[in-house]
């Protein structure tokens, strides 16, 4: 296994074969909808029961190093598993679907697309924007804000469901952050329209 995309593709094949419900989140999803940036990790949200986890680990090749210490994610109270592919290097993080209302909503709205030449489930661009704005607010990371701006800029103002985005940002207390990001994306729309 030479590249990060090989690892993601191999995991997608296993998840699809086992019929495990999942969606690809994080930078892979924001790159698909926005301006791609370098990434050395892939994140998945899974709706999975214990026996399926064992089946999943058993099906992965020896290139995947499953961290024996699955961690308990304090914020959502869910399971988190890190898988490393040290020869590349690349990291995959698996998160259990939480009871957080937006986590539930974006999972329900996930859409089946082609990713790395195979079927894969991804969140909608609106849900990527909502989650990135949420992280940028809570974790104070500029790259999440930049990712949200990039998705809005590339997708275009007319194609996104703003009422859905604003509703969830209202729930999360991030409307002001959203407005800042949208203002930056709007500058790109205007410049693009002006030629």
């Amino acid at each position, binding site marked *: 296994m030479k590249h990060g995309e090989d690892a993601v593709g191999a995991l997608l094949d296993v998840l699809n074969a086992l019929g495990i419900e999942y969606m690809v989140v994080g930078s892979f999803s924001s790159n698909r909808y926005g*301006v*791609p940036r370098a990434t050395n990790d892939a994140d998945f949200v899974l709706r999975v029961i214990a026996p399926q986890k064992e089946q999943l680990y058993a099906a992965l090749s020896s290139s995947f190093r499953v961290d024996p210490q699955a961690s308990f994610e304090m*914020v959502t109270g869910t399971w988190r598993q890190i898988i490393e592919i040290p020869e590349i290097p690349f990291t995959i993080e698996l998160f259990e679907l939480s009871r957080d209302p937006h986590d539930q909503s974006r999972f329900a709205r996930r859409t089946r697309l082609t990713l790395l030449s195979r079927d894969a489930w991804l969140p909608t661009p609106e849900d990527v924007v909502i989650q990135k704005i949420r992280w940028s607010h809570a974790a104070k990371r500029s790259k999440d804000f930049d990712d949200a701006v990039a998705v809005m800029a*590339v997708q275009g103002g007319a194609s996104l469901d703003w009422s859905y985005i604003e509703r969830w940002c209202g729930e999360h207390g991030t409307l002001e952050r959203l407005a800042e990001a949208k203002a930056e994306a709007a500058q790109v729309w205007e410049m*693009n329209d002006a030629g």
Partner: protein
Amino acid sequence: MEDRIASDARRVMLAKVRQARRMTEEARVLAGPQLFARACELMKEGLRHDHPGLDDDAIHQKLLQCLRIHSRLDHKRRLPR
């Protein structure tokens, strides 16, 4: 001067957005790990320059060490995806 910097930044962003729109969605996805792989190669060149006596395996271990430090800084502030 600040206005000039802001204007230049907007132009750069516009160029990136236009480039992204010209790419297929699949190409955008592949670009992420490929850009990182290229960055790793550049880091390794720097490490080889700084540590001329080390073999490829040792250089790779040093790269992993650098990435672990970066990852620890990043994970301290992360929420689940």
